[in-house]
């Protein structure tokens, strides 16, 4: 028996007086606001490495969204996800703020100038005196790294058929994707995706529906996406698939240590409501991938559509701090980051090193709540990282929760360790 198995068995044999009370609900203890410290890690963060499973997933029709009559931006009756025993402040459930590090590395961006890191974030359209912003519970968040949006293969098949129909195609065949898991010496297969071969008059597509709710379509032939006219035509084709009436393109990118620019294309639904527009940009955007087999392709080959608001449950509009207040907190060291402390100069974060600010919603599967953060780009010390071509500069990303501290139950402290 392995040591951890022996420990688990031994825990079952401890003094019965230590057994927990499982059938009662305790009250929340007093609030605590903890400040994060800069972490110590090694290499650049490359996206989230793990995702989480949710034991309870509600159907989209049951969700509270900003579009439903009983909830949304400015709504007075927030939904709290059916939770009991959750303490509220002014009628709003307490939430947490935190960064889940998805892998070895930190969030940093390289470019020759800060202007190259423009990303199309529409947050400046929100009036600076906005006092409250919506917060959502991430229904797909869970700790077991197996997010479930579709309950069954049949649900995934229906989603694939709908996607094909939106592309003007029909499903010709499907194939379930599974991964093997060894549990207690028994190999079992777990359904993780369904891939559908589709075809229509205009071409063919490989539609892939993941268990976690992402639907992608790999298009043949690819869609020209270089000139303004081509982009407009492409968005016309893709908008039906994405469900957008008025799509906006947001292009962003940063450079690698050799100076090569890597760009990302996002598409989201425009809105007259600037808050809703930011939410669409952060929480409900889709990604486009260019043709890659021939180097820097100009055509779009693949489009990804995420669950968006179907995976989020509106909690309420939370009072927020201003940009200036967030900046002051950053300078006092009250922030969340994965950036190593030794990448900053000796005097740490100073006003002149803050080159860019934006408001974002962190909405990955590793975030328990979709909530607003001020995101600061801080210029790291010159010469970091070693080996980068001359003239490149690295900006570290630092977050300050926008929700006022009294609504935050706790901010986990990043202690700089990797397990």
């Amino acid at each position, binding site marked *: 028996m392995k040591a951890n198995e022996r420990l*688990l068995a031994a825990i079952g044999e401890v003094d019965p007086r230590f057994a927990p009370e*499982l059938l009662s609900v305790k009250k929340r203890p007093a609030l605590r606001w903890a400040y994060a410290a800069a972490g110590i890690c090694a290499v650049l963060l490359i996206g989230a490495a793990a995702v989480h499973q949710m034991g309870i997933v509600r159907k989209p029709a049951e969700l509270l969204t900003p579009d439903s009559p009983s909830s949304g931006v400015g709504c007075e009756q927030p939904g709290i996800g059916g939770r009991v025993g959750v303490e509220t402040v002014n009628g709003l459930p307490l939430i947490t703020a935190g960064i889940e590090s998805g892998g070895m590395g930190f969030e940093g961006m390289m470019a020759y100038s800060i202007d190259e890191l423009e990303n199309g974030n529409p947050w400046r359209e929100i009036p600076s005196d906005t006092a409250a912003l919506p917060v959502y519970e991430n229904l797909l968040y869970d700790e077991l790294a197996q997010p479930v949006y579709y309950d069954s293969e049949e649900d995934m098949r229906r989603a694939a058929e709908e996607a094909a129909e939106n592309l003007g195609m029909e499903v010709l065949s499907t194939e379930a994707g599974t991964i093997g898991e060894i549990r207690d010496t028994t190999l079992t297969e777990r359904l993780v995706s369904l891939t559908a071969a589709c075809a229509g008059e205009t071409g063919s597509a490989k539609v892939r529906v993941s268990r976690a709710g992402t639907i992608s379509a790999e298009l043949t032939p690819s869609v020209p996406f270089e000139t303004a006219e081509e982009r407009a035509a492409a968005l016309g084709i893709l908008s039906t698939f994405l469900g957008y009436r008025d799509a906006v393109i947001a292009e962003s990118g940063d450079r690698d240590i050799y100076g090569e620019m890597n760009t990302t294309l996002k598409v989201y639904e425009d809105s007259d409501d600037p808050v809703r527009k930011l939410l669409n940009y952060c929480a409900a955007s889709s990604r486009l991938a260019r043709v890659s087999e021939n180097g820097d392709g100009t055509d779009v080959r693949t489009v990804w559509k995420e669950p968006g608001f179907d995976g989020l449950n509106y909690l309420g509009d939370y009072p927020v701090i201003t940009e200036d207040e967030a900046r002051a907190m950053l300078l006092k060291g009250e922030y969340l980051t994965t950036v190593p402390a030794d990448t900053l100069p000796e005097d740490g974060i100073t006003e002149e090193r803050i080159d860019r600010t934006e408001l974002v919603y962190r909405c990955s599967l590793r975030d328990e709540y979709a909530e607003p953060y001020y995101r600061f780009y801080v210029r790291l010390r010159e010469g970091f990282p070693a080996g980068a071509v001359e003239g490149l500069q690295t900006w570290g990303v630092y977050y300050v929760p926008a929700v006022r501290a009294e609504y935050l139950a706790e901010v986990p402290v990043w202690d700089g360790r990797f397990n």
Partner: protein
Amino acid sequence: MEDAEIVALYWKRDEDALTASADKYGSYCAVIARNILSDEGDAEECVNDTWLRAWNAIPPKRPSRLAGFFGAITRNLALDRLRRSRAARAGGGIVTVCLEELAEAVGEEDGTDEIDLRDALDRFLGTLTPAARDIFMRRYWAFQTERDIARARGITAGAVRMSLSRTRTLLKRYLNGEETGK
């Protein structure tokens, strides 16, 4: 019925002990069984088997706190059933996650020393704050998810995660012979 009265029924070999146990602790044990086994029928069988195991154990045992005594039996029965299961159940996921987390404290290599883990754990648990101990036991004794623990204690899942991480670090130090603090 008080625990002592139920234990007395067992000692008298009165089969009402089984009914009384199921009435008072059936739900408690079912929570543990369901956390480990996703199949409702399997979980129910484990709970039913718990009373029979207890019948065979009392006497000679005279447990002072039946929740822990019955819960431990259910836990072991459910883990045994999970190990024997031909098809790993979805509920096995939480056990796997717990094992991975505990590997942080003791690793996965076969232990060669003769540390009496159970006694060491009893001593270690006695050093923890009640809150940290409760969270630790909910996780590794009753196999509750972080979210369930958070809801039960009225705190956030992040706070549960931090508490578990801290306690595992303390446990690692303790098992390595270092001092631990509350």
